[in-house]
């Protein structure tokens, strides 16, 4: 019986397939969205089953003869609820035994908190509220369909093929990196292999979880740590990172650059809004612990960045 993985070309989906197929020798079915490229999946000789991520019947066919199905994200906040419901109904219809839904946590809109403090549900903008609603719908539909369901909430997933790593590396290379509040805000990231470890636990556990569990790195790192470690691992000078005591950009040029570059603006927003995540519930319910340390995760991410820049060696 196979393990179906949606979003196989994403940072998490591609790493999960590498781990399951190469590491565990598991039989995997990759389920990309019908019009998506499948470059990374095509490196392997595995079952490819394109489907509509918001279509229950399309997904049900893709999940046939699978014992488990894993949703690795890649949908927008707008589609989150539809895709979560479709995923759950498809899993039930295909008689999948376990369905695992990986979800990003709600991020508060307000910037009035102290850095690192937990945020209240009422702070969340409507997009993130719909993500939480999607999780509830997913759990409810799975219960109705007799599927053992798990919701894993992650922070920013970083690692090979992570847009975050790529953007920070580019900022550093082009000397346009800057940190609001001197980068003191908590970095709510989780190295991709730690999420894979949590997924593996969900595939094996006899526990029945009725609530989402948060999966995070063990250490409390800051955004300053992220930038400086990446600069160090990529041999880029730390002095290229500018910072300000407030949330404002440094100088007119940086403000214009930040305003015009959607990805930089997104990174700035992440730095300002994310709380520190704790994975105590995952530890208790699943026996989860973050096996890959933060510094090791950044190092491996930088190894991947060098790889896609053409700095590679043949295997020994």
């Amino acid at each position, binding site marked *: 019986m196979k393990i179906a993985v949606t979003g196989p070309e994403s940072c998490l989906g591609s790493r999960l397939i*590498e*781990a399951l197929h*190469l*590491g565990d*020798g598991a039989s995997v079915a990759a389920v*990309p969205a*019908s*019009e*998506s*490229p*499948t*470059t*990374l*999946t*095509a*490196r*392997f*000789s*595995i079952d490819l089953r*394109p489907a509509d991520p918001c279509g229950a019947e399309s997904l049900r066919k893709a999940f046939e003869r699978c014992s488990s199905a894993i949703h690795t994200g890649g949908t927008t906040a707008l589609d989150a609820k539809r895709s979560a419901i479709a995923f759950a109904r498809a899993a039930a219809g295909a008689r999948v035994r376990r369905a695992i839904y990986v979800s990003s946590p709600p991020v508060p809109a307000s910037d009035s908190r102290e850095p690192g403090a937990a945020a209240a549900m009422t702070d969340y903008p409507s997009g993130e509220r719909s993500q939480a609603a999607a999780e509830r719908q997913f759990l409810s539909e799975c219960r109705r369909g007799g599927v053992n369901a798990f919701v894993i909430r992650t922070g920013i997933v970083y*690692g*090979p*093929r992570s847009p975050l790593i*790529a953007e920070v590396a580019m900022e550093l290379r082009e000397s346009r990196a800057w940190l609001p509040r001197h980068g003191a805000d908590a970095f709510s990231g989780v190295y991709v292999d730690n999420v894979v470890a949590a997924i593996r636990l969900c595939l094996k556990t006899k526990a029945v979880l009725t609530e989402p569990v948060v999966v995070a790195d063990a250490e409390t790192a800051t955004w300053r740590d992220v930038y400086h470690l990446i600069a160090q691992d990529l041999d880029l000078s730390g002095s290229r990172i500018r910072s300000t005591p407030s949330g404002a950009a440094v100088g007119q040029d940086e403000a214009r650059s930040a305003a015009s570059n959607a990805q930089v603006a997104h990174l700035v927003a992440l730095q300002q809004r994310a709380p520190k995540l704790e994975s105590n519930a995952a530890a208790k319910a699943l026996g989860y612990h973050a096996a890959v340390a933060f510094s090791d995760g950044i190092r*491996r*991410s930088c*190894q*991947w960045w060098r*790889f*896609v*820049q*053409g700095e*590679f*060696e*043949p*295997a*020994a």
Partner: protein
Amino acid sequence: MRTSTHSTKRRAPKKPAPEPADSHPGLTADETPAVRGSPPATDVVLAGSAATMADYMPALRILESAGAIRVQAVVSREPGGHSSLVNEFRNARAAPSVDKAVVAPGALVVLASLPHLHPAQAGAAFRRGWHVLTLSPLARSAPEAMTMLATAQRHERLLAVALPHRFSAGVNYIRVLCHDQLIGPLIRVDVHDGTPPAAAGAGGTDGALVEPGVGVLDLLTWCMGPPEIESYADDAMGGVEANASLRLMFPESVPAAIHLSRDWPTARSYEFVFERGIARWTPRRPESLQLQLASAPAALEGSFRPALVAGAATVPDAASAAEADPFRAQLQNVLDAIARRAPLAVPAADAVSALAMADACRARRTLLRQPWLSHNESVHARTLSMPIGLRRE
């Protein structure tokens, strides 16, 4: 005898009124349709999608407006895959296959479909009496290409392969620098090319060595002559490669390092380092070049114009973007070859050596080290990367 007042002489046909110049915006006077004496338009069939045909669209529009071609059919296997192309050309009709397109013999079909479809589609085109221009790569392997060539010869039809870099002013300038050593002998070459496909249709099932690899190999061989392959490694683990690394040695001991990727966007940069300067070219701007001359305080960057002549009274204008378009130049050459006005500049046989080089790379491939994989994952990856008969699991 009745005398007829009606003249018995045949009247000359009425000349159509010349179209005003502004009914063909973007065309120079030379490009507006001639009223009399111009060669008949060549019927054209497009096989592919708007995405795969994108680079050729400006040239196709201009040539149709100029009356040089008439796009009669668009072939796509996907339902609705041809709709935007059909809307683009007023005479074009959709067809699900080459066999079902209603177009007379003597037409030209532009195959912008995936390489694995080229042999069957080209064969069907030749049987219809059409000539064929395929986008690169011509085929997935040298033997497959040779079979297509033989079929073309049997039907006495032209088979051309689109290698627009051979018509690019930037690449030809570099070629002259290499041949004539105008800034000294070539020392080394570094190439980074490839981008992730935009959609499933554009990506296909071929790896980075096929697209963009075959085109890269042709460009370098065109500039420097055939190389020796020193090493080839990629990340295929039972499937097709997303990333590849080639090391070649060109004549006069010039090493070349080539990085190909369909996994992550590359710089798409071709850097030629000479003894007394550096030339850098990118397919993103095929008609421009960056040039660093020896210890000059700055690099030059720009497009091309006719060579300067000292003391000349007038300076010829640079070519317009449309005139300089290498895709248009190649299309025009194929049309001229069909009409026997000029020899085919890039016959398909030219593309076989690059395909043969790609085949030779595969025969000696090793696995690229992916350092983020665990030890167990790396061991299994190495096993899967071997041919099935050599695996010991």
